[in-house]
Structures are given as structure tokens and as C-alpha cells.
């Protein structure tokens, strides 16, 4: 076990009494409670943690928190494993297992590293260019590209962890709990406003945890932060969310927050929530997201050990770990001097400060001098050496315009390099909110300007670098946000602040390189996507001068970090190349999420059985007990078929289909959509929504109807019954119930508001048993004595009310099978009892329950359509051969005009026909394409497709329905169905198989 060689004796705020063991790439290390994986690895001197995306270069830690671009780690094992996690955001725990990514066979020796030497072969736009090579080459390259492109590994099994969602409302949401955010929370909360404050770090405080040279009201920044946090914790209307990334900012101040719950979930066997996705509606948003430090752009600036200066300061002051014993500082501003001073205070040997500025002059500069830190003024690091970790840096004097190098090369040995290239406000969420940004010359970056929603930006996010101003902005924003959301405000006193004063920054971009004949030295802009300076230059030479094109062509800023450290450098370089202002280059829009988010968090608990509600009928317990196989129809679970012991599906369905035509079959038809229609204009309404005539339907009778969309295409079908005057019972397809009701409401409310019609869904109110077959009347007669069931008294399409098995029932004499059939409706709670009674009494008639599969076969034997199977939204009633149902005399119905459109009356439209395979054992696969002539290989011109296909026991052979171009003119013709290994010949027929096909 390693001994935390780089752990500092005094600095940091960790629980040193709580040592923890964790595993990285198979090796066990030790850290402390409060460490992140990054800080614990650094404490053990582990810099090499990954391989870069394209060139497989060794990479180490770059930053802290969400900023990290390099150290993407695979965390956890088995199906709980999560790839692409920033090591700087993983809180360690005892037993944590993590591994590096994108390396093969090992991290230190990686074969993909040859990509680095062959770098010239992988220029910008490589992937686009590859697509243009001959196609057969692409097939070869694809294998390597796919292998090389993978970052982490996705688990293959089901995610065992639990995710939750939380909905919340608040007056003020503060994003970021640094100095500005905390001040805003303090001010807003004192007004009684409901406040949520979220921060992606485990501890609140942001930069307050990093600095040791500032004081607020004479307290250290950490103590001030602790006081504020304690105050906020005591307030009932303040919700504090650490470990929570605000990931999305949508319209109308709707934001999503991803909370990571305590980390021990990784090894837990009990189901615990891993992430909680908050969906928050906010009156006023305050963005206090701070600033992200910018890397410097110089040759070989990506070696492990080269890190952002402020990150190093944070590792020292917050985690008590130094990334190196002999660090070198490379900067263009004063802030990096604070890192040098911090190092010195912790007895770390600072090799030197290399400052590109020619005349730095500030208190920080003087302090560095006083502490006898060597400062190379006007110098720059021009290249670095070291494989798995930086070993040395070469420095040279910069010319006064910063474009060339002069003088001698000096090589400085070091084991770590702190770089500071200026600061960028984290404007991602502001950009997501629709806010506009503007260029700021002094900071050489984009800062927020015009907001389009109720959002305020403060502190670093606003481009404000110093602490005193940030606190002031925070307090003001807190007050005004509370006021805007309707709370009374009392401005709190502005705290007194001591902090180092900083002087100007000198932006030298890029740092010039020395031409090297032998090796091309790479200057990285985007670490995560391996985009180099020469990629940007090449893209520009090839004409990709718009920022949106540049981004896509070079992939700069397109990694999982969305260019947090790379975007502004890339833009500045492009503006230099184009010789224009960065403002003119523009800025790409950021999109959610701010940081990668596990898909499981979006799914939440809506998985498995909770994905979609399952609807079951009143008779369902019987189906289950009978051993039925089920199928999903929309949200419904329907009995599919009832296999007996040792029976195949085909055998069961054949038996059920035969019984329904020879004795009695019984079907649970409860799932059919049912709409109760009442009102004086109900008949008129039906007349307008169905294609056929409805005005003269007498009470006690039913009619089949077809509904079209306004474009003339079939939308739904069903039987509607006149219960009594002005009262109808409409049935719809099982799947169409909700949409038909909505459709009817739409027409009633928007087109015909003068019609007095009232619609109520009664699908759930009625349980329906449909008995079908020659003996069904005899059976019903036994159970129903108050209705004359004779054909004369109760004819086909009749409707009667009476009592069945002692239950008040509505009986419809309608048929979807062509057989004598009664659909018995009883209140849902009596459904099961009716069903059992029918089966009990039906025994002597050999009653046979049948499922949806038999129902499909039975209707197909008669050529009856199923909407959604024979139709797909492009089929008219005429295409279906159902001209008989279209009224020629009605002045209007939905879809009427469309039926006479030129396209709709064309003769070569696809028409519904029957299809019988010439070989009477072939069952045509549903969905198969149909051709006139089979060619040796595709393409072949297709004339239609098979819509339904079954074995019909009553016809003694397979039958199929198909939509075929001009099908009705092709009766008797032979067509072909080309399949993978054979072609089937079939003859076009009428769809009424039962009456036309001899057994």
C-alpha cells in the first residue's frame, strides 16, 4: 500500500482519523474521509489516470470539480458501474473500486499510443474525411475507430441502482454556493423567501475553501462560510443541496438539478437512491456559478502533472495534498502567485514562476520576490518533457509582441506545473436560459449581457473576480430576487473584506513554439477531445471559419465537458486567424446537461412495472388462473390464448378458433373503448364524425361506423348503439379509446360548439363477455329469461337490456367473427361473476374461452379489418373496399372532401385484398413486401405488403390480407413474396376467405 507521500502535514480539512482504502486499476491505495478520488490519487502521487481520446497520450488530473477534462474514470463494478466520471467529483469511501479508461492493454503501456506518433494521419475532420473514402475502406476503418473512440464501458446488464425524481417550487434558486451564492442566499432567506441553494461540491463555499489569504469580517473565509452555512441550515425555508449539479435551464425558469446522494451506494446491497433528479420551478434564478480557469496554450501542455493553478491551490488548502514536491508555475496573471505563496507556506519547493508579463507589479509579485521564489519575467514555457509525468519544462524569453522567442533555452526540472491563463465565467446555464453574452476585453472572455428570463448573474459568473465585489453583488441579488418574487426585503450590511489586489493579465495566445524537425510538438486546446492548435489552423485553412463549423469539424468543445476549459481559447485563436474581434466570431450556445448525467436519473422510478400503468379487466384473475398467455394491447393486458398442457400456441389457437365456429367461444372484450354520448344533438354529431348515416338509427339498434381524419384516412372504427333517444353507446378500438375521445371533444369544442352533446368515457365501467358460435343463443337463453332472444325479436345489430345470471346487463347482438354472437355488458364489479357463470353453464355446450389471437384469426377468416393492422394512417375506406360505408348523400362528415382529392381517387392506390400462398403450408410473414417479379437481389419494385397473416383452421390453410397497388384489378394474379432464403408465390383473392375458400 502506498503511503500518501504527497499528503501535507497541516493543510486541508479532511478527517484524518478516518483512513479509507480504495482500489484504482487493481492497486490498493489509502485516503481520508473527505477526499475525492482525484485528491486521494494525488496524495499517492498518481498523476497518470487516463489516455487521451484520439492520440492515446498519457493524461493526468487537470482541475477540480466539474472542470476536470482529463481524469475520466470508470467507477464501481458489475452492472452498477458508471463510466466517464470525473475523478475530482467522486467522494471516496472504504472499498471504492475505480479504473482508468481508453487504454489497452494497460495504462502505462498503451498500444493506441502509436496514434500520437502518427498524429499527422488523424487531422481535424478525420472522421468526416474518412466517410468520403471508398466505402469498402470505411468498413475496415470502422472497427479501429469504434474501438479507439470508446471512452468508458457501459454496463451490459440491468442497472441495479435506484433513482428518484423530486418536484419543487421556490422563490429563489441560487446556483453555486461560493461567496456570491452564499451572500445571495443569506440576503434572500432573511426576507422569508423560499430559497434553494445548490452546489456541485460536497462542501459549500466554492473558492472560499481554496483561499487562505482573504478575510471576511476579520474571519478566515472558511470560518465565514461555516457561519453562513450554519445560519442557513437553521432557516426552515432554505433547502441546501450539496453534491447537486444544476444541469439544465429550460424555459419559464424550469431547471433540473442532479443530486448525487451519499457515495456508499456503490457497494451497498440494499437498494438506495443513487441520484435524485430535481425538477424545480423558480420565480427568480440567481447564477453564482463562478469562474473556470483557462489553460495556457503551449507545446506539450497536456502531460500528467500539468494542472490548473487554482486547482492545485484547492488541492493544497482544501484536501491537504500537493500535486508535486518541485512545482513550476506558468502564468499570465497575478492569481498564480497565490498558488506559489501557498506552496511556500506549506514548505513546498517552488522551482520558479514563469510569467509572460514584462513588468508585473503587484503586492503578490513583491511577496513572491520577498520569499525568494525565482521569477522569470517575460518568459514562457515553450515545451515540456516527461512521459507518465512531467519531468522538465523548457523556458525562453518572449519578444515584446509575444509572437516570437528570443535568447537561450533554459531547462527547469519539475514534477508538476501549475498553469494559469486567465478566467472564464461559467456562463453555461445563462446561455441555456437563452441569455445573450458579450465579449469583455479586460478579461478576454465572454460575460453575460442580456437575460431573457428572470435570472441574475453574480460574482465570477458575472465576470467579477474580487471577493468584496462578489459578496456585494450576492447580497444585492438576494434582495432583489426576493423582492421580485414578492417578499419584503431588508438589505443586510456589506461585510468588510481583506484580499490581495491583482494587476492586469497579459494574454499571449498561443505561446510560440520552436520548430522541431524531428517531432511535431502538439499544442492542445481541448484536452478531452484531443484538439490541437494545428487542427484549428487546418480547419480555418479549409474554410471552416464560422464558430459553429469549427466546433463540428474539429470537435473542439464537443466532449463531455462541453469545452469548459477549451472554448474561449479556441475562439480567441479563430479570431486571430480571421483577424477579427472575438465578438464577431461569436459564441456557440450551450445545451443541457451542464455535466454528463446518468440516463437512469431521467428514468427515475418509471422503469419495469412502473414504466407505464398496466390495465387489467375485471375478468383478469380468471385468465391468470386458467394459465392464459397475455399480450399487451396499449396499456391493457389481454388474454392472448389459453394453452392446455403440452399444447403449442398454434394448437391452442386452432382449437379456440374451431370452437367459436362449431360450439361456443367466449372472449373477454372489456378493453374495447366505450364512450357514453348524450344530448339533443347526439345523432347529428355522430352523423358528422362517422362516414355513414346516423340520423335515423332507432333506439335498440346498433350500427358499425368508420371514423376518418380530415385527410380522408381511416382513424378508428367501432359499433355505436342507440340506447334510447339522445343517448348512445359508442365503442372504439382498444388502443384508440383515449385518442378518439379527445378527437371528438376537439370537434365538439372547436368546430361545433353549438352542438349540445356530452361525452363520457365509460370504458372502465363495463365488463364485457362476448359469446360467439352457433350454440351461443341456447346458452344465453338459460341465463336470461327476460329477453326474447329469437332472431325475429332480437335481430342482428339489435340491442336489449335485461338480466343475465341475475345481473342487470346490456346485450348487443353484434359480431366481429361472422358467427351468431352476443356481447354482454355488465357493471365492472360483476364481470368476473358473469364470466364464471357463463363458463359454468356453457360446459355442456363445450364452451371454449378464446384470446386475442383467435379473435384475430376469426375476423380475418371473414375479411374484417383491424384499424392499425390493415390501416396505417395512409389508407382510405375506398382502399379497404368499404365504399358501402361512405354516405353519398350527407352534406358533410369529417374527411368527406378529402375523399375526392386527385391523389385519393387514383386507380393505382394500394387496395386491400386477400392473399393465398400457392403452397398451402406457407404462412406469409406479416409485413413482408410483395413484388410482381423476383429479381436475383434487391432492389425490386414493391407493389404492397402483407398486413395480416394466419393459419385458418376453418379454411384448412393459411390466409393473409395485403395492401397491393391496384389490388382489386389483379384478382387471380400471382405475386411473389421474396424472403431471405426463398420466395413464396401467392394468388390475389377476395378477403372473405370463410365463404370463398373451400375447405
Amino acid at each position, binding site marked *: 500500500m502506498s503511503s500518501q507521500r504527497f499528503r501535507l502535514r497541516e493543510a486541508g480539512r479532511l478527517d484524518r482519523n478516518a483512513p479509507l482504502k480504495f482500489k484504482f486499476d487493481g492497486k490498493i491505495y489509502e485516503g481520508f474521509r473527505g477526499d475525492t478520488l482525484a485528491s486521494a490519487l494525488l496524495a499517492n502521487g498518481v498523476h497518470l489516470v487516463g489516455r487521451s481520446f484520439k492520440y492515446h497520450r498519457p493524461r493526468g488530473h487537470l482541475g477540480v470539480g466539474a472542470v476536470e477534462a482529463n481524469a475520466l474514470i470508470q467507477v464501481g463494478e458489475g452492472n452498477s458501474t458508471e463510466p466517464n466520471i470525473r475523478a475530482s467529483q467522486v467522494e471516496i469511501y472504504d472499498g471504492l473500486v475505480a479504473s482508468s479508461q481508453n487504454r489497452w492493454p494497460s495504462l502505462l503501456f498503451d498500444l493506441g499510443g502509436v496514434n500520437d506518433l502518427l498524429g499527422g494521419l488523424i487531422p481535424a475532420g478525420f472522421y468526416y474525411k474518412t466517410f468520403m473514402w471508398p466505402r469498402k475502406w470505411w468498413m475496415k476503418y470502422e472497427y479501429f475507430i469504434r474501438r479507439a473512440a470508446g471512452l468508458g464501458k457501459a454496463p451490459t446488464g440491468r442497472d441495479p441502482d435506484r433513482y428518484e425524481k423530486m418536484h419543487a417550487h421556490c422563490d429563489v434558486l441560487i446556483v453555486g454556493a461560493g461567496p456570491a451564492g452564499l451572500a445571495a442566499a443569506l440576503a434572500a432567506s432573511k426576507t422569508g423567501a423560499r430559497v434553494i441553494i445548490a452546489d456541485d461540491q460536497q462542501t459549500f463555499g466554492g473558492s472560499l475553501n481554496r483561499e487562505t489569504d482573504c478575510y471576511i469580517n476579520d474571519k478566515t473565509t472558511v470560518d465565514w462560510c461555516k457561519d453562513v452555512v450554519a445560519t442557513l441550515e437553521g432557516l426552515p425555508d432554505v433547502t441546501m443541496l450539496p453534491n447537486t449539479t444544476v444541469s439544465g435551464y429550460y*424555459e*419559464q425558469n424550469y431547471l433540473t438539478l442532479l443530486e448525487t446522494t451519499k457515495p456508499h451506494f456503490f457497494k451497498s446491497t440494499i437498494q438506495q437512491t443513487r441520484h435524485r433528479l430535481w425538477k424545480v420551478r423558480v420565480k427568480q434564478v440567481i447564477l453564482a456559478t463562478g469562474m473556470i480557469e483557462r489553460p495556457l496554450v503551449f507545446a506539450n501542455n497536456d502531460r500528467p502533472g500539468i494542472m490548473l493553478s487554482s486547482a492545485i491551490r484547492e488541492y493544497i488548502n482544501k484536501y491537504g495534498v500537493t500535486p508535486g514536491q518541485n512545482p513550476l508555475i506558468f502564468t499570465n496573471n497575478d492569481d498564480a502567485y497565490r498558488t506559489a505563496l501557498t506552496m511556500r507556506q506549506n514548505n513546498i519547493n517552488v522551482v520558479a514562476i514563469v510569467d509572460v508579463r514584462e513588468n508585473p507589479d503587484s503586492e503578490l509579485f513583491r511577496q513572491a520576490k520577498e520569499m525568494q521564489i525565482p521569477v522569470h519575467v517575460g518568459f514562457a514555457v515553450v515545451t515540456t518533457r516527461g512521459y507518465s509525468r512531467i519531468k522538465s519544462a523548457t523556458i525562453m524569453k518572449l519578444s515584446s509582441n509575444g509572437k516570437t522567442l528570443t535568447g537561450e533555452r533554459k531547462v527547469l526540472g519539475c514534477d508538476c506545473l501549475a498553469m494559469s491563463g486567465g478566467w472564464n465565467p461559467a456562463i453555461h446555464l445563462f446561455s441555456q436560459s437563452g441569455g445573450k453574452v458579450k465579449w469583455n476585453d479586460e478579461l478576454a472572455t465572454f460575460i453575460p449581457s442580456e437575460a431573457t*428570463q428572470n435570472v441574475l448573474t453574480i460574482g465570477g459568473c458575472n465576470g467579477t473576480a474580487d471577493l468584496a465585489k462578489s459578496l456585494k453583488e450576492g447580497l444585492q441579488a438576494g434582495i432583489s430576487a426576493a423582492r421580485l418574487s414578492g417578499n419584503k426585503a431588508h438589505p443586510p450590511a456589506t461585510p468588510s473584506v481583506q484580499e490581495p489586489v491583482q494587476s492586469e493579465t497579459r494574454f499571449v495566445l498561443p505561446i510560440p513554439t520552436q520548430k522541431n524537425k524531428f517531432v511535431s510538438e502538439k499544442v492542445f486546446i481541448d484536452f478531452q477531445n484531443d484538439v490541437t492548435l494545428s487542427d484549428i489552423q487546418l480547419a480555418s485553412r479549409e474554410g471552416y471559419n464560422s464558430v459553429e463549423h469549427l466546433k463540428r469539424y474539429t470537435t473542439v468543445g464537443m466532449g463531455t465537458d462541453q469545452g469548459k476549459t477549451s472554448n474561449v481559447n479556441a475562439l480567441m485563436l479563430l479570431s486571430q486567424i480571421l483577424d477579427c474581434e472575438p465578438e464577431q466570431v461569436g459564441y456557440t450556445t450551450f445545451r443541457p446537461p451542464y455535466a454528463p448525467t446518468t440516463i437512469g436519473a431521467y428514468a427515475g422510478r418509471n422503469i419495469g412495472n412502473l414504466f407505464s400503468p398496466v390495465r387489467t379487466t375485471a375478468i383478469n384473475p380468471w385468465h391468470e388462473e386458467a394459465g392464459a398467455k397475455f399480450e399487451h394491447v396499449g396499456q391493457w393486458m389481454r388474454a392472448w390464448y389459453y394453452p392446455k398442457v403440452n399444447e403449442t400456441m398454434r394448437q391452442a389457437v386452432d382449437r379456440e378458433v374451431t370452437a367459436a365456429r362449431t360450439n361456443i367461444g367466449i372472449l373477454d372484450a372489456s378493453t374495447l373503448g366505450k364512450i357514453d354520448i348524450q344530448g339533443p344533438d347526439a345523432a347529428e354529431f355522430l352523423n358528422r364524425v362517422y362516414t355513414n348515416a346516423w340520423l335515423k338509427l332507432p333506439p335498440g339498434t346498433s350500427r358499425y361506423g368508420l371514423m376518418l381524419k380530415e385527410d380522408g384516412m381511416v382513424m378508428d372504427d367501432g359499433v355505436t348503439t342507440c340506447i334510447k333517444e339522445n343517448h348512445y353507446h359508442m365503442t372504439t378500438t382498444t388502443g384508440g379509446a383515449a385518442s378518439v375521445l379527445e378527437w371528438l*371533444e376537439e370537434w365538439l*369544442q372547436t368546430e361545433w360548439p353549438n352542438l349540445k352533446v356530452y361525452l363520457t368515457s365509460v370504458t372502465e365501467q363495463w365488463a364485457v363477455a362476448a359469446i360467439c358460435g352457433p350454440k351461443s343463443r341456447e346458452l344465453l337463453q338459460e341465463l336470461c329469461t327476460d329477453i326474447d332472444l329469437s332472431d325475429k325479436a332480437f335481430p342482428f345489430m339489435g340491442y336489449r337490456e335485461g338480466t343475465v345470471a341475475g345481473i342487470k346487463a346490456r346485450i348487443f347482438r353484434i359480431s366481429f367473427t361472422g358467427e351468431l354472437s352476443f356481447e354482454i355488458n355488465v357493471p365492472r364489479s360483476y364481470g368476473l361473476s358473469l364470466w364464471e357463470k357463463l363458463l359454468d353453464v356453457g360446459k355442456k355446450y363445450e364452451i371454449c374461452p378464446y384470446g386475442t389471437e383467435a379473435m384475430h384469426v376469426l375476423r380475418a377468416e371473414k375479411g374484417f379489418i383491424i384499424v392499425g393492422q390493415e390501416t396505417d394512417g395512409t389508407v382510405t375506406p375506398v382502399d379497404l373496399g368499404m365504399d358501402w360505408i361512405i354516405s353519398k348523400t350527407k352534406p358533410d362528415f369529417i374527411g368527406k*372532401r*378529402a375523399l375526392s382529392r386527385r391523389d385519393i381517387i387514383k386507380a393505382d392506390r394500394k387496395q386491400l385484398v386477400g392473399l393465398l400462398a400457392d403452397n398451402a403450408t406457407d404462412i406469409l410473414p406479416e409485413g413482408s413486401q410483395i413484388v410482381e417479379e423476383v429479381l436475383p437481389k434487391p432492389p425490386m419494385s414493391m407493389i404492397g405488403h402483407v398486413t395480416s397473416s394466419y393459419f385458418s383452421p376453418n379454411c384448412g390453410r393459411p390466409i393473409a390480407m395485403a395492401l397491393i397497388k391496384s389490388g382489386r384489378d389483379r384478382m387471380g394474379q400471382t405475386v411473389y413474396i421474396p424472403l431471405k432464403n426463398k420466395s413464396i408465390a401467392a394468388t390475389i383473392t377476395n378477403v372473405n376467405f370463410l365463404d370463398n375458400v373451400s375447405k
Partner: protein
Amino acid sequence: MLHIECPWCGFRDDAEFHYGGEAHITRPDPSTTLTDEKFSEYLFSKTNTKGLLLERWCHRSGCRRWFNVLRNTITNEILEVYPVTEKPSSKQGKETYERNWRRKSPPKKTPKTDEVK
């Protein structure tokens, strides 16, 4: 996710609503003869507005009522909610209503988008 104010139920998340497309498209009188072109215009021509749009929504999982909305398609800001049988009453709503090509002439081959600040 939009926050829509149903005239009957108040503010609700858009998951409860069903979008009904552009509002104020008059269904042609079926008793008049209508060319295929005119009918197709009614059936298929919809404005793809960048800016203010009058549109229909249905509170599907609530009161089931249809109503009209004036929405800015750039910012998703909802400026007016009004009954489905009426015309907008706000100034911007009235202007949007009048500016629609249906009030004037059929759309040109490449419809001009209405830019609204």
C-alpha cells in the same frame, strides 16, 4: 417543460396538455365547391413561425377543455390564454392574428417568417 395556465384549472405542467397546432384555421364550408388546391391549403399548410404564434392546446389529463394560447416560439413565453371560440384580445395577439397569411392571401412558395421582437 412549459408551464401552461389552463383557463379552468390554473397553471399545470405541459405533460398534462396536448398540443393542437395552429389556431384560427377556418374549416371550409362543405356545401361550397372547393378546389383541391384550396382544400389542401386548409389541410396541410401550417405556418412554421419563429416568434408569436396563436395555437390550440387541450388540457388532456385535466378538464379536457380546448383553449387557445399566444406563445412566443423563440422563448416559449405564453402571453395570452383565451377561449377557443374567441379571437385574441391582447394587442400582440390581435396583431399576430391579423398578420397571419390566412387573413390576407395564400402562402407564397417560400413563406416569409414573421419576426417578432
